[in-house]
């Protein structure tokens, strides 16, 4: 380093001696200037490659994968989309029945979104706007629920639903999801309601609107961006959820969600990995689409929701 610095100075000394000297600042700026791009490239590879690999394996034939596991691309002539038909078609016709799993996942996810919003919207409005007995305690309770270990909750719910015979029903699972998500949902929505100036609601109230009228006509439309973001957030949680789906639905294949189906079939030797990769793609794509379509909305909602925890 020292000789390098001297060389550099002797070569360039006629330009601008002050500016060209190898100070610590200059070295660091250089190093970090380069390092930054190396790091960004590294992160891009680390985060994107697994998903690229997922897509790649899903369109290659199993034999080709075994012959050449290190291939990083597939030539157009080798593209093999049979994996998708195989994973989607029903078990009777030799497939894996992911179409049914997708229907179950969609039912549960949309149901959770609808029910959660139905319950959380009035709740969030109340916590944000209305002074009632125990409001503070309720906020604390919700935060506690949010941070609670789900495995601890899994034990009694599993036992209880086994006992009353509701295990294995989609609606039972739906209620479990709503109960776990509603606290976070209220937390996020409440923060948004807090930012809506109250003067708007007051003027509506002066014009003769009732509390419910104010909520329906003023606060709800204003909170639409937050509601949409929250709905998407809930959808992603419900679509991705695994533990409770496993505990509740594992016995009946007809009721499996995509997550559960993939995890259950992943262990079997008979099903080619490439077919299951097609299943992963089917599981992941809806989430990625939602995410990229709403990235800004979601990240703002996420940080706003938890920043204040």
């Amino acid at each position, binding site marked *: 380093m020292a000789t390098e610095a001297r060389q550099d100075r002797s070569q360039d000394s006629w330009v601008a001696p002050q500016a060209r000297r190898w100070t610590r600042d200059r070295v660091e700026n250089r190093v970090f200037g380069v390092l930054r791009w190396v790091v960004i490239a590294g992160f891009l590879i680390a985060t994107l490659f697994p998903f690229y690999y997922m897509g790649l394996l899903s369109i290659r034939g199993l034999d080709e994968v075994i012959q050449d596991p290190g291939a990083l691309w597939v030539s157009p002539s080798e593209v093999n989309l049979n994996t998708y038909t195989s994973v989607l078609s029903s078990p009777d016709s030799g497939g894996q029945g992911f179409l049914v799993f997708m229907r179950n996942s969609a039912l549960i996810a949309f149901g959770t979104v609808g029910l959660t919003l139905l319950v959380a919207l*009035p709740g969030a409005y109340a916590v944000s706007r209305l002074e009632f007995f125990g*409001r503070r305690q309720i906020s604390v309770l919700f935060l506690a629920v949010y941070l609670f270990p789900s495995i601890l909750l899994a034990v009694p719910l599993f036992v209880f639903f086994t006992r009353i015979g509701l295990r294995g029903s989609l609606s039972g699972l739906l209620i479990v999801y709503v109960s776990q998500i509603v606290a976070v949902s209220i937390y996020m929505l409440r923060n948004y309601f807090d930012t809506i100036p109250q003067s708007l609601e007051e003027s509506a109230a002066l014009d003769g609107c009732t509390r419910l009228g104010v909520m329906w006509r003023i606060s709800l439309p204003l909170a639409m961006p937050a509601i949409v973001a929250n709905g998407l957030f809930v959808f992603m949680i419900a679509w991705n959820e695994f533990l409770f789906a496993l505990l509740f639905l594992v016995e009946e294949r007809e009721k499996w969600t995509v997550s559960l189906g993939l995890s259950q079939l992943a262990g079997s030797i008979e099903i080619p990995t490439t077919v299951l990769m097609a299943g*992963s793609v089917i599981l992941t794509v809806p989430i990625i689409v939602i995410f990229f379509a709403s990235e800004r909305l979601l990240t703002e909602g996420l940080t706003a929701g938890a920043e204040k925890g």
Partner: protein
Amino acid sequence: MSPDREGRTAASAEPASPGPAPRGTTGRKPGPSLRRSDARAGLVLISPTLVIVVFMVVLPILWTVLLAFQPLSLLTLANTGLLGTDYTLENFRTVVTESGFVGSLVTTLLYSVLGTGSAIVVGLVAALAVRHAFRGRTFVRAAMLLPYVAPVVAATFVWRTMLDPQFGIVNHWGTRLLGWDEPVAFLTQSSSEISLIGIELSVPTALLTVIAFEAWRSFPFAFLFLMARIQAIPATLEEAARVDGATPTQRFRYVLLPQLLPTIAVLSILRFIWTFNSFDDIYLLTGGGAGTEVVSVRVFNYLTARGDIGLASAQALVLAAILAVLVGVYLRRFAPQEEKT
């Protein structure tokens, strides 16, 4: 709580409002009847949530406490009442004396401390790398959040396939390019010997792999928060330090890092709680084998495979209690520091 304060400033900053109208009863003085009707409306609106949370979260957890004191299994469940009759400390005695539980507790601690730490460090590096605008930054940012939003089942499945000793791509290129002697069984080998500069080391392979997965999967969460914090730091601070001749590392050490510490503190506690309880990742990657059995996976196995409800509840409770103690100690140590900033 800060949301209150935030809400108030937002409302009073509104110039159009004639009287500053903060939340609830603090600013405007509603008459007694209005206040009463507000209180009633509030309770009505919150009650559906409350009912669901009480019946589906609070009561079940209280019930777990009862279950933990009973010798209960899935087979005898049908014959026992909701509250049970014969209470005993047997489950807890088994939990404490059995070596398996303590071992898996140590694994859980290792996993959550290292997982949390590496996720935050990686997230910080990512946030620093993309803090200044460049072409395509939005895309890079979105890409970095992918591991966090992607379904855990799909992510673990891809990792398992990539790390497969037979036709996994990591071992394929590792043996060809990096000169590995033989494929590494990342997820099924509990320890392996590697020689580093002539020193033979025993490394817990599978545990390190699941920790790496945890870092990969949850660094975006840290990244998101640190990024938001970094953007909120006034540029003048760093500018002043730069004018005074501070180099990039010095600016990071003495200007940026102190600003980020409160966020890092909050992050480490949130991530620690979630990692400490996490079940999905390890269950899906190794099934709890090869020295990666964390307590939550163990609880799951006791519950489903053995059907031993009593022991499962007792272990889950001990897990929650330890978590509560750790979090309590942490909050006591760091909470005052956070409030100052």
